[in-house]
């Protein structure tokens, strides 16, 4: 082969390639420097990471206000994919390109983040007077405080996580109305079943009683169990995740011993067999399910307050919501406020070059005024009770949600009683409660009692291993720390203690 025939000689080509590669490498290095500069805050620029998409207007508004109030300080927001947020934060620490301020990832646990030296102690600015603006119990060891130092602050308040959403138009069409014309909202399991039956039957199969979108594998089917089983008297509910869902009266998972779980799952299977569920629910995406509910393809769905901004944006407000549907007239267990779980919203990176400005941004994000705007923008409830006043909330469904905070009781929190438990980080089982509910729904799990018992045992074993690991490290931790034998799930725990 004659290379000389080509006007581009091999040597010239290689020289050119080397130059091009060098230029690309230099460009990459320069862009990396630029990214790092803005990432770690060149001048007075603060890099801020979150995973808020539907809440982005609120964040953007707060950034605008903050920048006006702090001349010369700019906030560069990066919204990451929520499913990969924890990985991205971990990678940022590994690569040395951490944001100055960031929403606290759910994994690893806050205690581990502190142990790894990721977070900056805020005590210099988070004085006692600053802390006093938050509700009592916000800054306790294990929740925002580790080793006596403050690392984070809360934004959101506690409210029932899941609600049963009711499409008023579908209910009216099915004749599910009160004598005064208002929609007859179901509050018991029987009423929910009857409503689903009426919707499916009267529509001739065109509309279904229930629907959901589990196509994104978010463990969404556990939401149904969690919502329905609490009212039946299972205070642990069915949250997915490591170390969650314990019945703190006995310090164990009671999936198999509390008949509420099997009862609801049996009922759910009956609903499916009777054709009450929208048939593509298992493969439908959550977004599509939200749209289908809006269009009245099904009359009821389970979800959280995060559904509301999109519906409001589409001017769809003709829906109602209830929480804790129960077998009887009154719920036997509730949702419980968890200052540890909801307490930490934002934190400052230990590597920030602008610690004071970074704290000021955390301060602004978690201020009472920002909390009020958080509520008014229909994002959720604020950590400040005064922010959750109904006045000023235009949306009727959202006002109904805010009113549900009354159904959120104060429950026992093991880490408050024993701060050493903050380091307990149990593994999650490969197949968790959301998988189990899916398996029951599809009919793949035949022996329900055995599956419930097996999962409860596995979760207990994982927690026990994690507790033992902490105890081995010289701290006082035992499985008995998770037992609150004097707890009555129908009453606030602190009141009971008093």
């Amino acid at each position, binding site marked *: 082969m004659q290379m000389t025939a080509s006007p581009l000689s091999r040597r010239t080509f290689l020289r050119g390639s080397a130059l091009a590669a060098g230029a690309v490498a230099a460009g990459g290095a320069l862009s990396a420097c630029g990214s790092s500069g803005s990432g770690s805050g060149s001048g007075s620029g603060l890099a801020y990471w979150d995973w808020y998409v539907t809440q982005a207007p609120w964040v953007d508004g707060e950034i605008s206000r903050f920048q006006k109030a702090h001349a010369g300080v700019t906030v560069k927001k990066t919204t990451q994919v929520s499913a990969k947020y924890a*990985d991205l934060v971990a990678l940022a620490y590994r690569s040395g390109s951490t944001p100055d301020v960031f929403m606290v990832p759910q994994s690893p646990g806050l205690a581990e983040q502190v142990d*790894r030296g990721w977070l900056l102690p805020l005590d210099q600015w988070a004085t006692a007077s600053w802390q006093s603006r938050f509700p009592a119990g916000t800054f306790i060891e294990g929740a925002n405080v580790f080793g006596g130092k403050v690392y984070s602050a809360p934004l959101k308040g506690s409210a029932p996580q899941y609600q049963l959403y009711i499409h008023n138009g579908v209910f009216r069409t099915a004749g599910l109305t009160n004598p005064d014309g208002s929609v007859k909202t179901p509050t018991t399991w029987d009423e929910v079943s009857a409503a689903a039956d009426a919707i499916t039957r009267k529509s001739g199969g065109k509309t279904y009683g229930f629907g959901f979108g589990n196509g994104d*594998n978010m463990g969404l089917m556990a939401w149904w169990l969690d919502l329905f089983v609490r009212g039946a008297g299972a205070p642990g509910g069915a949250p997915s995740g490591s170390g969650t869902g314990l019945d703190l009266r006995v310090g164990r998972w009671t999936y198999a011993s509390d008949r509420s779980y099997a009862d609801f799952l049996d009922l759910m299977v009956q609903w499916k067999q009777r054709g009450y569920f929208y048939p593509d629910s298992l493969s*439908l995406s959550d977004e599509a399910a939200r749209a289908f509910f809006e269009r009245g393809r099904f009359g009821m769905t389970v979800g959280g307050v995060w559904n509301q901004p999109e519906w409001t944006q589409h001017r769809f407000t003709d829906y109602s919501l209830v929480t804790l549907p129960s077998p009887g007239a009154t719920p036997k267990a509730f949702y419980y406020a968890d200052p540890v779980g909801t307490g930490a919203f934002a934190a400052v990176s230990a590597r920030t070059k602008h610690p004071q400005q970074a704290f000021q941004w955390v301060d602004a994000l978690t201020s009472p005024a920002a909390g009020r705007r958080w509520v008014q923008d229909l994002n959720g409830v604020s950590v400040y009770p005064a922010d959750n006043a109904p006045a000023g909330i235009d949306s009727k469904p959202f006002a109904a949600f805010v009113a549900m905070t009354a159904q959120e009781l104060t429950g026992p929190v093991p880490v408050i009683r024993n701060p050493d438990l903050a380091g307990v980080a149990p593994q*999650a089982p*490969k197949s968790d409660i959301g998988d189990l509910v899916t398996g029951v729904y*599809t009919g793949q799990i035949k022996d329900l009692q055995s599956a419930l018992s097996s999962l409860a045992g596995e979760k207990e074993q994982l927690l026990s291993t994690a507790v033992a690991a902490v105890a081995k490290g010289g701290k006082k931790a035992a499985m008995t720390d998770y037992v609150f034998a004097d707890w009555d799930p129908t009453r606030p725990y602190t009141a009971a203690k008093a």
Partner: protein
Amino acid sequence: MTLSAPGLRRRPDPAGTPEPAPVRRTGLRRRVRAAGWSYAYLAPMAVLVLAFVVYPIFASLGYTFYQWNGIGSPSNFVGLANFRQVLHDSIFWGAVEHTFVYAFVLVPVQLLIALMLALVLNNPRLRFRMFFRTVYFVPVVTSAAVVGVVMQLMLSNFGDAAGSLFAGTGLTGSHIDWLGDPHTALAVVIAIGIWHTLGYNLVYFMAGLQTIPAELYEAARIDGAGPVRCFFSITLPMLRQVGVVIVVLAFIGSFQVFDLVQVLTGGGPYFATEVVNTYIYHLAFGGGSGSGAVQPDVGLASAASFLYGLLLILFSAAQVLALRRLGRRRAGSAL
């Protein structure tokens, strides 16, 4: 430089023929230098393979002995516990079963369809054959993730038309959630997989068909052979060599299935379509069939990868032995 080592003498040739001139053997360095440009051209790919294929294999072997969530450095040494856990995990064995079902259904069906289409499209008298070849090859150049997203939208998110497709025909009793029903989800994934990579095998078969001399068919026809006889006596035997390569490549590709499953079903419902690669992915990066809360465990994922690698090596060895034995038997019967 001579071949004789110091102190050794070469025996004199009894025939008295003159000794050949000493062969000039070049050293390794000189030979490398002589082929310098070849090595320079190969170097970038070699570096990439070493960095992203060879190194991770050996690095992941070390991780198999740790429980590690991928953050920081692994420190929790667990010995062989990860292997034990994977070997006792019914979900892993379910994933292995699904992977093998995927491969052993997809490969024969796909190869049969590809061969039939190749025979049709190889007909020089077929009009618009370039157009048809393009049509069948287009899915190959489309990303599996894109194919998965589009199919997922069509089957699930565009309403219930797809699910009700056969409801009125009597083929099915009622609406089917194709991707949400454990009885149909894997079949749908396989069907889409067959369609997606059919073009590769079609092209391979067409290339193989075009190597068969036309004279063979002409001679056979003169001898009175019909199309069926020609197919079984000429086409199939002449395609045997290329066919073996196609089968091996098709199995290798099938065992690597990941993106299609991940996008279409995520391994669900309740692990009904979990294949080994999605299983490993879910262990390494969290998430799973029905719960997004599973924590990443790189050590466990590495152990699963290692075990799956061993399984594939065993399968490949068995495949090679079977093909070799088949070849010998055919050679014996031909004699």
